[in-house]
């Protein structure tokens, strides 16, 4: 029977064999990918002697950027932060730092050393996150390459290869080899809806051969890309055996992780500030003159026709501020615990988003044992609740290192760790890490955990939008309600990313600027 394939079908087949890189390259060639737009920094005009008061709720990245930009244009800003700390989820933990988790006060017991820090929130900056990079440039924050992907790291799946960790290099090389062989056979038969021309067919056969490193008979028999069993320098390199294809398919690595680092946000190279992500927060704080009130917990938000009133508690006193505008980055799931007069549909849209349960655990390792295993940075993946292990790319060959011992993407895994005491979290992280690196626990000096669903005044990360919610609620929340603007990464398509927070803040500021300019220059300013 003749089987016909559409072009999309064909692209899918290419994708199965080559992953998203192959699709990306093919799509690029077909002109299907949009160009990256220019940086949408709000151009906020100076307002001269016109007094405009802006109340900014939350001193995370979006609140700080708003204060910084607006005060420079002459706005009178006050930042109101519930926690004792400035920075929100941009949190770098070092020796002696307090971890403000509800019910479990922790102290970070890392050694006092500039390399020994843990970015508990954002930890990497992709090259197209232009707002973040803009501020790094503006505040002269030194950046370095962060290693986010490493083929020498491992994938470990309890349901495949008898639970044995497999080098990502071997897995990917063999997966592509096997699939290229199948692709080669399919192309050879040329059973497509619109059959390939002879020339295209020949090119495609070569593509499959090169892509999978097939032999002269178009069969995959292993590749040096997987690394040699031994030799390869002054002795002839002997190829590693080929992984069992059935085991390879049983592993869930191909479902998601295998192509994860090909996403635009995760693909190498990515960057990190030298010495900790909170250098960005320090940069803002150095430059902001507006008051940033800490330990100031918002009690009520009242929208008025011509402004917004905010009541907050601070130092045992209740205070009220009135602003012409309010920019609100309080986590959406905490707003239903704060008095407000939001219209029903606005409150309902805010309430429709579930809070996330991301959790990170960091371990101080006595020795950088992974470097002796050829691993310099990157991520190992596992199907266990810890999900990932990150190897620090900074401080290479120094004595100790802070390893990320868990980073849970699945809410159920985050909640698993939330339910454990801090000590039990470290124990669980070690036990699971042992499946990837036997003897792992012997290297652990101490650890610290940050389950965002339990962090004081935050209680969640990141806002869990669905396609359906984006359709029904996003525009409602992106746009202001009267003079009140919701913002932060929670009001973006990049929830959980600083770039989402900054894009959202700049979107709100552009709107405020437009309204204020219209007020200043329009007839209403006279009347």
């Amino acid at each position: 029977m003749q089987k016909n394939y559409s072009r999309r079908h064909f692209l899918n087949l290419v994708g199965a064999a080559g992953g998203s890189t192959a699709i990306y390259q093919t799509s690029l060639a077909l002109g299907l990918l949009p160009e990256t737009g220019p940086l949408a920094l709000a151009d906020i005009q100076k307002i001269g002697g016109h007094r405009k008061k802006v109340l900014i709720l939350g001193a995370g990245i979006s609140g700080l950027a708003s204060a910084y930009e607006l005060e420079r244009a002459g706005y009178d800003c006050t930042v109101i932060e519930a926690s004792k700390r400035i920075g929100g989820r941009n949190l770098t933990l070092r020796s002696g730092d307090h971890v403000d988790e509800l019910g479990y006060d922790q102290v970070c017991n890392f050694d006092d050393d500039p390399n020994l820090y843990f970015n508990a929130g954002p930890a990497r900056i992709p090259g197209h996150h232009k707002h973040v990079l803009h501020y790094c440039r503006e505040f002269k924050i030194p950046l370095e390459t962060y290693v986010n992907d490493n083929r020498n790291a491992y994938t470990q799946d309890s349901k495949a290869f008898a639970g044995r960790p497999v080098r990502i290099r071997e897995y990917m090389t063999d997966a592509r080899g096997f699939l290229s062989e199948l692709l080669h056979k399919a192309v050879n038969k040329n059973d497509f809806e619109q059959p390939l021309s002879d020339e295209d067919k020949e090119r495609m056969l070569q593509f499959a051969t090169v892509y999978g490193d097939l032999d002269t008979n178009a069969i995959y028999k292993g590749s040096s890309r997987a690394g040699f069993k031994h030799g390869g320098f002054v002795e002839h390199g002997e190829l590693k055996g080929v992984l069992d294809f059935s085991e390879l398919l049983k592993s869930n690595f191909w479902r998601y992780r295998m192509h994860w680092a090909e996403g635009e946000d995760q693909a190498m190279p990515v960057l990190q500030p030298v010495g900790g992500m909170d250098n960005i927060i320090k940069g803002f704080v150095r430059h902001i003159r507006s008051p940033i009130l800490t330990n100031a917990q918002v009690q009520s938000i009242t929208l008025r026709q011509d402004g917004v009133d905010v009541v907050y508690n601070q130092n045992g006193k209740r205070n009220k501020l009135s602003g012409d505008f309010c920019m609100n980055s309080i986590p959406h799931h905490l707003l239903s615990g704060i008095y407000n007069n939001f219209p029903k549909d606005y409150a309902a849209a805010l309430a429709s988003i579930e809070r996330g349960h991301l959790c990170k655990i960091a371990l101080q390792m006595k020795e950088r044992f992974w470097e002796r295993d050829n691993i310099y940075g990157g991520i190992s993946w596992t199907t266990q609740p810890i999900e990932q292990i990150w190897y620090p790319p900074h401080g290479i060959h120094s004595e100790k290192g802070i390893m990320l011992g868990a980073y849970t993407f699945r809410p159920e895994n985050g909640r698993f760790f939330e339910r454990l005491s801090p000590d039990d979290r470290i124990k669980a992280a070690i036990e699971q890490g042992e499946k990837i690196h036997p003897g792992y626990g012997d290297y652990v000096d101490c650890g610290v955990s940050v389950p965002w669903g339990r962090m004081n005044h935050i209680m969640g990360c990141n806002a869990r939008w669905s396609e359906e919610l984006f359709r029904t609620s996003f525009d409602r929340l992106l746009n202001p309600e009267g003079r009140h603007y919701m913002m932060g990464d929670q009001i973006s398509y990049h929830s959980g990313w600083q770039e989402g927070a900054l894009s959202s803040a700049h979107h709100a500021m552009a709107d405020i600027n437009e309204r204020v300019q219209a007020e200043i220059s329009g007839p209403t300013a006279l009347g």
Partner: protein
Amino acid sequence: MFCGASSHADESPVIPPDEYVFCTVCHGVQLKGNPLIEAPRISRMEAWYVERQLHAFKKGWRGRHERDLNGMEMRPMATSLSNDDIDAVAAYVRSVDSERPAKTVQGNAAIGRAHYASCVECHGENGEGKEALGAPSLTGVNDWYLITQLKNFRDGTRGGSAGDNYGAQMRAAAQILTNDQAIFDVVSYVSTLPSKQEK
């Protein structure tokens, strides 16, 4: 457009002592409850009941059962409190007021009233509670929270620990609610009861 700006918080504020601000992070301003965190309204809750429950969390009678996920979230808060802290928290909780929570459950209150007959002896005709019997007031508690707790009592998630005598009593009482509809109905009835605690 923005008339009726409700700010109960402005009218009768009780500013939490700094060391207990954390209660309001989940339970909301004035402890008015936050359904998104699944933290119930506890404003005006009887001090003796708050104390007993904090001790129950501390002992692991609550918040240790594998199905009690919300209880597990709460439990570390209680374990971090000393006995003196517990007294102070209970006094603070009792001192704070907020308006009664909105009704969210649609049950048959008339049928619920019949079920409620067996609750009257301990919780009182108007759900006002009886301290002498260790039974708390039921009015002013979020209906969704009552439902969760009745289900927990019924299936032994709550009230099944050795030593938790009040819990065991309530667990036995909850067995008359043989299906979820009965729970919705009785809670719908409770939410019609006049609130004594706000007087």
